[in-house]
């Protein structure tokens, strides 16, 4: 047993030595990587760890952080009713806009792929524009304004369906539905571009071979040829979809107000923003960020596992 352990350690040592030698030969590689790595580490990796660290402390920037272990998490889950609303809303938004937005992106890209080239270029611009148009989603607050000047209310009153305007943006009954619709409208982002480009890149010979092998309609072609070829893009699209559906806050704040009526449109990120930059309870806000981060990572892993089954 000990000889086995010895040889194992020996092997590891040799491996490390080989790696070290390789690394020495590759000095220039590390030099090329260095500026990126330093900045990437400082602004993208370190924050994650410092966020986890601060989540165990009470920290208000002015005083040094005080270690309180799990207290933030206990307060969040047991005492913070608003956080539970935020979790519920974020969950609803993620479960609906995530998968539906994702499938919508793919279906649209798949259909667009059937169009002639010149038309495809125009349609892609039309679909992609909303997601890069800045805070243009605010326009929906004019559509759904709670007085008779709001477009939807104006039209509904004009044709006599309702007598008085509906408070779309302040009545909790309507808020979530509206937010979800707006988010779906915004969902054609980088993932969608990846799908469009990926579909173009699928080897045409495979389709011809598939036809000879008896692929009879476009659904079979989708399942047996297109999707397996698109797996890398599907993963990329999933990452993008998770990012956008978990990180929702700007849209709810712009449309339903901040804070919204009865916190009915509060999301995890809105809550985080509230504690971080309104109350400066950085420890508490970090705990919220950590929970969000874990949820996103778990979701990503689950989707990866799911996508492995595609085409089998």
């Amino acid at each position: 047993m000990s000889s086995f352990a010895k040889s194992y350690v020996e092997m590891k040592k040799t491996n490390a030595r080989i790696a070290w030698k390789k690394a020495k030969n590759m000095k220039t590689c590390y030099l090329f990587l260095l500026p990126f790595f330093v900045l990437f580490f400082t602004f993208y990796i370190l924050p994650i760890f410092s966020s986890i660290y601060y989540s165990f402390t009470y920290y208000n920037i002015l005083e040094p952080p005080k270690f309180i272990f799990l207290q933030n998490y206990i307060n969040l889950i047991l005492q913070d009713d608003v956080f539970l609303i935020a979790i519920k809303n974020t969950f609803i938004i993620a479960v609906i806009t995530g998968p539906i937005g994702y499938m919508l992106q793919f279906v649209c890209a798949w259909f667009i792929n059937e169009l002639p080239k010149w038309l495809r270029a125009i349609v892609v611009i039309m679909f992609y524009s909303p997601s890069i148009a800045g805070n243009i989603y605010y326009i929906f607050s004019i559509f759904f304004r709670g007085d008779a000047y709001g477009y939807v209310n104006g039209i509904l009153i004009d044709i006599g369906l309702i007598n008085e305007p509906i408070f779309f943006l302040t009545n909790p009954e309507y808020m979530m539905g509206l937010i979800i619709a707006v988010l779906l409208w915004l969902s054609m982002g980088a993932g969608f571009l990846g799908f469009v480009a990926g579909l173009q890149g699928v080897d045409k010979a495979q389709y011809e071979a598939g036809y000879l092998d008896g692929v009879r309609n476009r659904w079979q072609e989708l399942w047996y040829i297109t999707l397996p070829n698109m797996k890398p893009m599907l993963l990329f699209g999933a990452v993008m979809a998770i990012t956008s559906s978990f990180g929702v806050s700007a849209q709810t704040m712009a449309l339903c107000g901040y804070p919204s009526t009865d916190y009915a449109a509060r999301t995890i990120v809105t809550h985080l923003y509230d504690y971080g930059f309104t109350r400066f309870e950085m420890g508490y806000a970090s705990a919220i960020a950590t929970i969000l981060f874990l949820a996103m990572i778990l979701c990503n892993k689950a989707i990866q596992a799911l996508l492995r089954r595609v085409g089998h």
Partner: protein
Amino acid sequence: MKTSTKPYHKKPRILRRRQPNRSRGGDIFIYIFLAVMACIMVLPLVFAINQSLKPMDELFRFPPTFFAKNPGFQNFTDLFVTMNKSTVPFSRYIFNTLFTTAVGTAGHLLIGSMAAFVLAKYDFPGNRLIFGVVVTALMFTGSILMIPNYLIMNSLGWIDSLLAIIVPAFASPMGVFLMKQFMEGLPTALIEAAKVDGATEWYVFTRIVMPNVKPAWLTMIIFSVQSLWNNPASVYIYSEEKKALVYALSQVSLGGVARTGQAAAVSVVTMIVPILLFIISESQILETMASSGIKD
């Protein structure tokens, strides 16, 4: 020669079935579906433009109208007047945005593509790990990083400094990811050949690799410009003379009912730049995105 192998090319595009296993009904469905979707996607944008062209009395008409009856640029001139009345000259906001966008994009392009180059073309210890972390970091949006980054900026003394916007943009994982995936497609023989001739890595990078990945760096530039242009960075910046154009403009739209028209003008100004950039560079971006997949 080409037409003889594909005889169905002679029919007009719409009448021809693209492939033998496509049903006519399905094709019609696709066109209808896409037409409806395209309307849904574009109508709000068209409405926003219309809204910005409406004079005040039309903005508050009952029942509301979709198209402007007497379109004019009154809102845009009003916006210009409002912006000039601010304590800080309008040009200052424009300078801030141009400066952060230009410097941030240039730095991102250089630093990001250097990293992407070695990640794509060299096999060194730690390569896989670093790229794996970059892929995971695609998910670290502003929302998760907001609090800790604020603390980091605070300890660096970069709060209320343009550096807080520019420097993190250098290391944006999206650009590196796309660039690396695109560079993977370059034939390794190209690099090997140069190295046999005694070229240094820097030479290979600047003279051989970069000229061959033009679509990728154009995409990198566009994505970087879009995100910097739309980044108000309202968390880090508070003094008026350092605010970005988008931030300053969004303050105008907070001016209440009287500024409804100007707010519409603001949204048009903010959306036009990213959309135009995309229209110009669409084919290059799509070429880059074709290699955007994440392999298991």
